């Protein structure tokens, strides 16, 4: 897997160039996003406020913040599942309203369809988008091979392990070739070992795909191991507190990169910023209830 990572990374040279240079126009622009929910107790609850962020084409961007800070709401708004109360979301300079074919979303919980086989699940996207059965199946079979699920085409999700179901979810999203890939703590339900393996596979797949990624997590090691840039968010309402460029070499293995001296430095640096917010969120959670 890792050998193929190296070669495919050089294949998609355009993606890695774009990642390095900052003068390329951003693929995704979030402009002063605000999201309020009606709340019976507080009247209104502001979940996201003054949220500004640019994501360059092919960039892997991790959003990290305390639990319940509104990270997921940001992704939901970009995906078109929720409307911002105010502010704009631009993709390629044009405003995004509603769901968009350029967007892919990997959910925290399994969102694979339990009544579809592995093949049916992965072919679902192309089918929804109007591809014929044959064409959709061909594309799906290709992705089944790429995520290493060959031989499980006819299995139903309940017959698979957590890691395999996650591979189905990745293939289901990737088969649509998203240019904007939103991931909401996708590996949080997995055990530590599977999580590391999946992170490695994600990087390998991403390098062949060249999509811009917004990866929400509350695990700092995961964020640094995967991303080009780590964006620290404040406790609710979520807003960008500080951004950190992760100048670690690629292609990387999320497991081995942890021992890189620069990784340890970055971890220290980001943690000091993040821990304040975690403390705020914790204090709030314990006093309110």
């Amino acid at each position, binding site marked *: 897997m890792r050998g193929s990572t190296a070669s495919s990374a050089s294949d998609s040279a355009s993606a890695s160039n774009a990642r390095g240079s900052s003068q390329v126009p951003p693929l995704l622009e979030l402009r002063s996003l605000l999201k309020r929910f009606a709340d019976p107790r507080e009247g209104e609850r502001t979940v996201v406020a003054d949220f500004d962020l640019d994501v360059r084409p092919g960039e892997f961007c991790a959003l990290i913040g305390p639990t319940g800070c509104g990270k997921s709401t940001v992704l939901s708004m970009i*995906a*078109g*599942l929720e409307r911002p109360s105010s502010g704009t979301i631009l993709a390629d300079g044009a405003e995004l309203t509603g*769901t968009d*074919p350029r*967007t*892919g*979303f990997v*959910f925290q*919980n399994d*969102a*694979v*369809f*339990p*009544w*579809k*086989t592995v093949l049916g699940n992965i072919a*679902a*996207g192309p089918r*929804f*988008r109007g591809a014929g059965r044959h064409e959709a199946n061909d594309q799906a079979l290709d992705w089944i091979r790429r995520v290493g699920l060959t031989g499980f085409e006819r299995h*139903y*999700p*309940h017959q698979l392990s957590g890691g395999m179901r996650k591979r189905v979810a990745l293939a*289901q*999203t990737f088969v*649509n070739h998203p240019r904007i890939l939103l991931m909401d703590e996708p590996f949080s339900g997995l055990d530590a070992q599977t999580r590391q393996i999946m992170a490695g596979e994600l990087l390998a797949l991403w390098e062949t795909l060249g999509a811009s990624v917004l990866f929400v997590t509350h695990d700092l090691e995961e964020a640094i191991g995967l991303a080009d840039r780590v964006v620290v968010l404040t406790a609710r309402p979520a807003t960008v507190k500080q951004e950190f460029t992760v100048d670690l070499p690629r292609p990387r293995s999320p497991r081995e990169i942890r021992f890189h001296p620069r990784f340890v430095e970055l971890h220290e640096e980001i943690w000091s910023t993040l821990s304040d917010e975690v403390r705020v969120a914790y204090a709030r959670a314990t006093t309110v209830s």
Partner: protein
Amino acid sequence: MIPAIQLGILAALLGAWQIAVDTRSISEFFFGSPTGTYRELYEWIRRGTVEGPLWQQAWVTLQETLLGFGFGVVLGVLLGMILGRISILARIFTVYIGTLNAVPRIVLGSVFIIWFGLGMGSKIALAVVLVFFSVFFNAFQGARDVDPGLIANARILGAGRTAVLAQVVLPSAFSWIIASLRVAFGLAITGAVVGEIIGATQGLGLLIEQSQGNFDPDGVYAGLVVTTVLAAAAEGLITLLERRLLRWKPRRRTSPSPTT
């Protein structure tokens, strides 16, 4: 081994009944007997009933049952899904449906006979009403119960409104709906037979009603046996359907549904 014991218990019970009748411990006139029931059935099969051949009577009842079941299920699923997904409609109409559900529906049989006459129509209508409510509430619950994450996923993968309904909401609600189908089929037979007992020109219910009028318990039992055979066959078919449609579920023992 188990089937042998089960058959043994059945034989023992029927035997005890027969002996009780033969020794005049209980009155054959009121309670009938297994051999009497068997004779009656044999007569029906060999020479036909007073109303014509048995298969014809059974076919009438079966048609009423199947049509009532079919219309009732389609209506129940359709309305259940619509109200389940569109909350404003649910808020308007649940009070009506709840109230109608409280009506002792068997009584509607008399109403339908006045409306639709003694033919099959009134029986089908009664079966539809009985089936509808048992299916409706399950379909409604099933449609509301759909994991919102799955709907979100389908939408992002590119599904439109109808694709979400057909490929996410419907299959997800299926396990709820299927659970209600067993009960519903029993109710469809009940509707057809009771409708015939209230007033009919043909059907198993009519045979039962006539035997009752002639003070012939064996005839009532014979009618019951034929009805039960139909119900059991339908139960088998629904189990097959369930296996086919819920293949994707982890194997678990199906428990009888708690509806009605």
